[in-house]
């Protein structure tokens, strides 16, 4: 499963502060969409609205419409918990659950929700997710060890395995490689490319090479100044953004003239 996400006139607030203003875009299924832009431009804020994680922060809310395959996830009757079951998320810093083993971490989406499953079923899901996250060969002999015993790059892939184990439709990655070394980064990037066969992948990155290497579509965000809302400046095919952008700001940013 993989879903098309449409954002229409989306405004994102922290209390009275408008953080991201008037976003209109369509995120394609079975593709990687990259969000790039300088710090503070609202990329991370926006990606957190895609699974309704934004409203976890006290006082934060969203105006506008955000649909997944035509269904508005901000409709009043929608349960944010159910949205998050369809939209997996990987965070900037690897955050495996410290009290759980590697295997329990992978199965945490089920275990934390008290889902009953047989042992063979659990083993199958764990293996499939770990294989999917390119981590199986490294951890198959120590599934009962704590998740925090892995290296940073392995922990991040464990978090990806945890996210894909519940078979979501969309995977969100908020700067998933910014805390990792180049080799782990390459592993995560390869994985992201594999994941797009099955999922809609959205990735926030500060690394423009990363965006140009792996993404199909790129969205460039910018702010006019501190305290001003972030805006979507340009959104197009990745080759177009990096070779021949329409907007001057985009060109300045991707060519390294600022930011």
């Amino acid at each position: 499963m993989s879903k098309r996400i449409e954002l229409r006139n989306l405004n994102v607030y922290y209390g009275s502060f408008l953080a991201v203003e008037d976003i209109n875009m369509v995120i394609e299924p079975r593709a990687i969409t990259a969000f790039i832009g300088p710090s503070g431009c609202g990329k991370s804020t926006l990606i957190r609205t895609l699974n309704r994680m934004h409203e976890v922060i006290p006082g934060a809310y969203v105006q506008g419409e955000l649909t997944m395959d035509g269904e508005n996830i901000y409709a009043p009757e929608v349960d944010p918990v159910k949205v998050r079951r369809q939209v997996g998320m990987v965070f900037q810093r690897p955050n495996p659950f410290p009290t759980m083993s590697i295997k329990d971490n992978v199965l945490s989406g089920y275990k934390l929700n008290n889902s009953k499953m047989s042992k063979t079923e659990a083993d199958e899901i764990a293996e499939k997710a770990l294989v999917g996250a390119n981590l199986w060969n490294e951890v198959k002999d120590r599934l009962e060890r704590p998740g925090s015993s892995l290296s940073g790059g392995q922990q991040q892939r464990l978090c990806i395995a945890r996210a894909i184990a519940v078979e979501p439709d969309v995977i969100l990655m908020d700067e998933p490689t910014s805390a990792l070394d180049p080799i782990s980064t390459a592993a995560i990037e390869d994985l992201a490319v594999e994941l797009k066969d099955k999922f809609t992948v959205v990735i926030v990155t500060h690394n423009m090479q990363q965006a140009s290497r792996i993404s199909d579509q790129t969205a460039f965000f910018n702010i006019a100044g501190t305290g001003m809302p972030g805006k979507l400046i340009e959104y197009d095919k990745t080759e177009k953004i990096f070779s021949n952008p329409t907007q001057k700001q985009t060109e300045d940013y991707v060519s390294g003239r600022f930011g």
Partner: protein
Amino acid sequence: MSAVTSSLQASASLPRWYNPAALLGSFSLALASMTLSGFEDEAGNLNLAAVIVIGYLLYMAITFVVSRAVEGRRKSVDRMVTGLVTAAFTLAVIPLLSLTYTVVSNGLARLDATFFSNSMRNIVGEGGGALHAIVGTLELTGIATLISVPIGIMTAIYLVEYGRGRLAKLVTFFVDVMTGIPSIVAGLFAFTLFLVVLGPANAINGLAGAVSLSVLMVPVVIRATEEMLKIVPNELREASYALGVPKWLTIIKVVIPTALAGIATGVIIAIARVIGETAPLLLAAGFTASMNYNPLSDKMMTLPVFVFTSFANQGVDTQAYIDRSWAGALTLMIIVMVLNLIARIISRVFSPRG
């Protein structure tokens, strides 16, 4: 050799034997001067405190001068501060060691099988024991824990995970106020509460004592749990939310297990804090010489009250009462020590590994 002077060259330093030698020298000098000057107390004994103070001051003075001359200003100041910190530490430890020694040496005399198998019923002189007090202490503290831990942990969860705005501020304020309640006031509260509900004939019982203890215990549990919940990284909560786990399950299955070691330690420390309370129990649970296993009716003895009453109301054979009092104090100390040990084991077992 000094032709090459580097700015990185270390200044000369005193040899390693300097410290023990200087200490030995200063204290023997102090001892000698006190003995020779004939500075003794009425009984003709040496004034040991004076020897230690003079020896310490001598050591500090000598070290300052010598170190300043040989090693320079920075190292001499370093030695002074080391001397001060060590002295402060010693001062802090002396009462603790002295107290432990006194309680153990005085308490051992009656720490026998009779002490743990008998009550004080029909005992006026020697013999008798504190079984009734031990049972009472364990029951009362157990009930107090059963009352305080759920209230305390749930209040802490409310404050950390849900509390926003005025109600949370109010609760925090009252928890602060409760922390400062004098224990006798907690005892009066429980006593009057049971007096109003059960009437003067039945007001004093074990449950009343347990309630007064839990009044003292709840704020300690709340504070400890609150601190532990606060240090659970927010990233773990977000990771759980992002998996589509509702908030209440996140708290039960992610936040609490991560903080469990700290919470358990906090609870044990809270127990250790109230198990030695005397004043509220004197009022609310009363005192008795007989066994009473039922906390719901009649007066109930507890160890701290046992220690107090044995000492305060000495009978015909004074020494027997005093010995029992010391043995009671030692038993209480052993219980608290065992609790602390359990806390350490728990925190080791439950803490997240990695």
